[in-house]
């Protein structure tokens, strides 16, 4: 009967959830805020589970009772007095008591997770673009894309905004949840990683054709490692010396790559080089296309030739290049490492 379906459902759900915790899982919290919210989930699952099971049992019993009454041909109970009182007590009083408790917990959790205990010393700006993330370390003057590096063990303030449509910034394991990236506004959230490692983020406001593959890699490393990386990144990328790479650099402007992509010393005139990710540290990035594929020379070449193979509909156009030109360009780009 339908009334029993809820129960194995819960059991199954509980068992399944126990084994969760992937790289983008709400149930794999690696920060104080995410852990608080994870506990809130378990408490609400348990409490509503108990309450609704009681209601299901009552419904099941009612049906059995009504079937039996029909089989025994019991007469209709004409006395309906007191039913209203029962309905009010069970239907209004019990949920009210539960809701007061649950709302209190929710409000407290909300204020605990909405801001870190200590004021963050570092601010990182993340700007949403269709369909990638621009990441700025304003104090150090460093710009990168799609890979957000943070130091472990300290809260980091994240200021988000958007260059085009509304996106939403979400790193489930490290933050207090999502914050929308809205053009014309700056919203503030924070991240804190308990452990060094790689975490996944994802755009969670539908932003167009490639919303699905707009992911973010968060790399949490020990503070000294992070500082060293930031320090390295303040230097411009090395100027190519060998012939092939120099030709790659030439092609980079000749073929108009620099209309959208900035590379420190190559950055073209004002207003250009803003539409696509900054490529200063391209060679050191783990992935291409906001986590779409691993950053290998082959994938990079294919991406340049036709990014739509990986992400149909992205704004970067396919580029027709002779094989050797493509090789030169890839070779130049592969040298961009701080």
């Amino acid at each position, binding site marked *: 009967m339908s009334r029993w379906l809820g129960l194995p459902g819960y059991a199954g759900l509980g068992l399944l959830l126990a084994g969760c915790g992937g*790289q983008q*899982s709400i149930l794999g919290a690696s920060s104080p805020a995410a852990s608080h919210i994870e506990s809130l989930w378990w408490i609400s699952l348990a409490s509503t589970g108990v309450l609704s099971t009681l209601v299901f049992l009552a419904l099941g019993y009612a049906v059995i009772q009504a079937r039996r009454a*029909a089989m025994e041909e019991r007469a209709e109970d004409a006395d309906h007095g007191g039913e209203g009182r029962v309905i*009010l007590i069970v239907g209004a009083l019990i949920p009210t008591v539960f809701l007061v408790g649950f709302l209190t917990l929710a409000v407290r959790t909300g204020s605990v997770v909405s801001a870190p205990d200590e004021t963050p010393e570092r601010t990182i700006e993340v700007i949403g673009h269709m369909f990638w993330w621009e990441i700025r370390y304003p104090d150090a003057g460093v710009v990168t894309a799609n890979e957000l590096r943070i130091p472990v063990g300290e809260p980091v303030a994240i200021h988000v905004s958007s260059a085009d449509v509304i996106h939403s910034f979400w790193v489930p394991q490290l933050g207090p949840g999502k914050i929308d990236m809205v053009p014309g506004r700056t919203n503030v959230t924070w991240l804190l990683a308990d452990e060094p490692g790689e975490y996944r983020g994802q755009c969670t406001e*539908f932003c167009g054709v490639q919303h699905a593959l707009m992911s973010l890699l968060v790399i949490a490393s020990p503070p000294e490692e992070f500082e060293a990386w930031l320090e390295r990144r303040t230097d411009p990328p090395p100027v190519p010396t060998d012939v092939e790479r120099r030709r790659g650099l030439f092609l980079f402007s000749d073929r108009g790559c620099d209309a959208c992509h900035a590379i420190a010393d190559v950055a073209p005139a004002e207003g250009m080089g803003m539409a696509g990710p900054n490529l200063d540290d391209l060679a050191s990035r783990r992935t291409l296309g906001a986590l779409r594929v691993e950053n290998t020379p082959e994938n990079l070449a294919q991406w340049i030739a036709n990014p739509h193979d990986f992400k149909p509909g992205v704004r970067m156009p396919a580029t027709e290049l002779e094989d050797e030109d493509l090789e030169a360009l890839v070779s130049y780009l592969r040298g961009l490492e701080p």
Partner: protein
Amino acid sequence: VSDRVRGAVRLDDERERSLGEHLSSVWAPPPGALGFFTAVNHRVVGLRFMVTAFVFFLLAGLLAVAVRLQLSLPLLDVLSPEAYNQAFTMHGSTMMFLFVIPFLEGLAIYLVPLMIGAREMAFPRLNAFGYWVFLVAGVGLYVAYLSGHAPDAGWYNYPPLSGPGYSPGPNVDFWVVLITFLEVSALVAAVEIVVTILKQRAPGMSLTRMPVFVWAMLITALMIVFAMPALILTSTMLGLDRMMGTHFFNVAAGGDPFLWQHLFWFFGHPDVYILLLPGIGAISMIIPTFARRPLAGYTLVVASMVILGMLSFGVWVHHMYTVGLALVGLNFFAAASMLITIPSSIQIIAWITTIWKGRIEVMTTAMLFALAFIVLFILGGITGIMIAAVPFNWQVHDTHFIVAHFHYTMVGGTIFPIFAAIYYWFPKMTGRVLDERLGRWHFWLFLVGFNVTFLLMHVTGLEGMPRRTYTYLPDLGWSALNMISTVGTFIMGAGVFVLLWNVWWSWRVGPVAPPSPWHGRTLEWTTTSPPANYNFLHVPLVGARGSSGEADRGDAADDGGDRPRWLQALSEGRGGRRENIVTDVLAAEPEGRVVLPKPSPWPFWTAMALSIAFVGALWTPYLVPVGLALTFVALVGWHWPSGTGAPDEPADDELTDRLTGLKAPIVWGVVLLVAIEGTVLALLVMSAFYLRLGAEAWPPQGMATPELATSTLRQGLLVASALPAWMGVRGFLRGDRRRFLLGLAVGLVLAGGYLVLGGFEYTDRAHGWDTHVFGSLDWLMGVYAAFHVVVLMLAAATLGSFVHRGARGAGYLPAAQGLLVYWVFVALGSVLLHGAWHFLARW
């Protein structure tokens, strides 16, 4: 029922039969192909709504299958990203706008008159008009889909993504134009349902004796009246942004994308309860019938529905927890959202109590769907409580957890009741009972398939899978969960196929249904299955509450019993007129009778003309005035005096034909129209305040403060114009037709002055609507007011010319009163817009 019921005549069987034949010919839907376009009968229109909506349900279901196939494994290529975005946008838009609301409205249009003992809805032609509008809008959306230009920015269309900059193609235009058009249909049906319920209940059916389904539809229709205007306003703004270059949502020119979100969800959240309440009403009819006892806690259930309806207007921000608003405000909305649990659980406990103390003799398919509804509604409700908690929502917002949650509420809360309703009322509508064995197959396949699809989807969401994504990468561990969901979709689909087969088979050769196959005790079961053209041979008298199964059947179906003389006269269809009794709002005491219009092709033509205005906007804005002009012509044809109006000669009984003021259904219709337009107006004023508060300078730098004198002068003219109109209507009430015409003429001249001065004022404007959102607002408010004055003047001139021709004499009195109500609204509305605008500019 009052004294008037006493004093009766008795009829013999022969007289009954000839009366039935006569009434049947009076109320017969027109025959033939031409008749197809002219029919106005509520049961014809209601069935059309339901059948058409169900076709859209099947289409949306196919889209869901395509979506699930694409997601069954990572990086599949079943749908391109563009095709996927169109598919989920169309799936959501279709289910929300083209299936659930029209289907439930169709159900109400079919059932409400039968449940309240009426022969017809209050405005039959409006009913037919609403159907044609729905058909054009729905078909238009699918023509767009087949042409490859389906909307693709989600059913909620957030700008700037849906704005001209990021969705330059015609795709979103189709959504904006057709969904706005469709809301016209939803709104006319709502007005119709409210007025029918309030004014055309059988004598004795006081509000406290009304069946719960009728209560649910009354509340739902009132919610539509106050919620849909927000959608109409905001989609109009988006359409103007896209087609006329205004800046309501353009950050660069002072607009604000959050304005869209507030207005959309101010409609969108009540909309969820608009979808839910009719189902709650239907379940509250079905459970008592099969539990063989009245609904426990009738008053509590009705009160809970009223409270749900009201609360649903105060929770829209819970769709916006992540946009960056202050936490204090969010907690307020969290509390309001959680409050919804209380009326919901009161209803659930009332149903359980009803069953507990009842006797289920047969476990019918309808009852199975009703029981499953309770379970799924609870499951959807508890995840609803969870996501009302702000921090948990921050995590699961826009993940598959939400997809699972709202499918439990929407499928569990509306589609399961719809299926229950189909099994329950199919015999009444077709005269055949649906097959129970197939019904069980349908039930179990759909229930199992539904849970396979959506139960584990909660986990998919908790594992971090976002919504509205056409694919995902293999290493995220979501593949197995997604595959299970896809398999479930096919099981659900199989269930729907069984239903289709069952309907097709049973309609042709199923067992013939008696008048009351389930021993239901409300009025619709007292007439034949399917009902005769006239629904009830005699207007029923209600002695006790029908809803809880206590309809006093001796009173309700006493064919040939003692009848009051006035009621008898009403039953006879004098002069071939379609008449219905009119009763008062609270106690349903008889007040008089109305003559309802006969079939007409004009509702069809009006819908076509209005389609030119709306659909034409897709090509060029210039088609809008053309379409509106044609609409006016069609409306004149619609209202052209025919010979079937109320008779001028006094009737030979005690029931008056001369209903005025709030006794007249048409005045209620106008009051509801004013409620709709007043809501649009109020939201427009609030939007102006919102945009002004978000602006640094107002007027923005370089733009002039609008000049006050001319504007105030013309407001004065408009207010003054209502005065002669009022005096004219007062004269008309005393029978002085010339005085009425004179009043209208003077009023028209003054209102014309308003328009002329307005023309001067706006041609003087240094800014256009495309300079800044300041200009966009200025023009929209000015045009909104002026458009209403034009409509008012056309209506006044038309009514005046009809009265001048003398076609119906005093029959136009309630129309004149309605016109006056509208006149006062237009004048005050213009003053409010004007006052708010100048206040903001100088504040």
